């Protein structure tokens, strides 16, 4: 008989807070190390692209940000659905913690894409299916945050914002498959289940940067989750103790 894992152990806010507190510095440190390593490979060691020249190096930031923008949204919608179905407060808090980092990643993807588009396509922006659906993703994140902040009752805010998050999830496959379904100026995927069309040194740097983006996202989300947990659980004994300890250290 194997050891039975109690997956609900960390569903208690106080335990979740302690877990986030322990993991956050390690994840942030890992993100910094991986980003330094990935940027060194990507900006210095990776060769110049035969078609795009040096400007292609923007992809080492643009692609991880764009992938994270979609992954974070799916995670946010997933937690929102769990929160709605099982009425779990912690799930709603997770969704709430994910939204600002998702919006930031979407903004970075759009902005770095514009900086890549100008020298490559000759324009900062086109109303192309990929770009437009990514912009819609940014509005969905902003809408989720605005809706949550506009309703005073936290439970009602959780439910309303969760519905928006779940409905908006339909946009994620649209973003991903937009370059397949429609004729777009944006290039198709360079990395897929069947392999990659990128040169090996470029791919290696990109994958390291993707790992850095994952670690950064987890660190930022856990940091925000700790703030949300303390704010919402302020009335409880454990949160009061944590706040008092923080006040003493401040």
């Amino acid at each position: 008989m194997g050891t039975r894992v109690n997956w609900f152990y960390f569903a208690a806010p106080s335990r979740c807070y302690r877990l986030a507190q322990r993991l956050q510095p390690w994840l942030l440190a890992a993100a910094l190390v991986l980003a330094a390593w990935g940027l060194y490979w990507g900006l210095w060691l990776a060769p110049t692209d035969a078609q795009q020249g040096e400007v292609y190096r923007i992809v080492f930031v643009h692609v991880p940000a764009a992938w994270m923008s979609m992954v974070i949204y799916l995670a946010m919608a997933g937690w929102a659905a769990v929160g709605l179905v099982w009425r779990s407060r912690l799930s709603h808090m997770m969704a709430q913690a994910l939204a600002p980092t998702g919006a930031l990643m979407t903004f970075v993807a759009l902005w770095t894409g514009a900086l890549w588009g100008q020298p490559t396509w000759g324009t900062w922006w086109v109303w192309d299916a990929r770009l437009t659906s990514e912009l819609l993703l940014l509005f969905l994140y902003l809408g989720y945050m605005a809706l949550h902040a506009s309703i005073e009752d936290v439970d009602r805010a959780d439910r309303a914002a969760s519905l928006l998050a779940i409905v908006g999830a339909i946009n994620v496959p649209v973003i991903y498959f937009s370059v397949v379904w429609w004729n777009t100026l944006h290039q198709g995927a360079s990395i897929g289940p069947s392999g990659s069309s990128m040169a090996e040194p470029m791919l290696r740097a990109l994958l390291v940067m993707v790992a850095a983006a994952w670690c950064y996202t987890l660190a930022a989300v856990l940091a925000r989750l700790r703030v949300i947990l303390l704010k919402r659980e302020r009335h409880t004994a454990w949160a009061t103790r944590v706040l008092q300890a923080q006040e003493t250290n401040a």
Partner: protein
Amino acid sequence: MTTFEVWLTMGGKGWYVWGALGMTLLALLAEWWVLRLQRRALLRPSQDDTWDMGLESS
């Protein structure tokens, strides 16, 4: 031009490449700065309604 200078100018596209990286760094730093403000705001219970923006009232 030295190898370093060639690298720094990124074949004449330095503004785009360094601009993208610099802006990303600024955005990430801003996220942690806002988180820090929100953490600090928690220590002041009376300023509850300014929490969402991470702002401190006077």
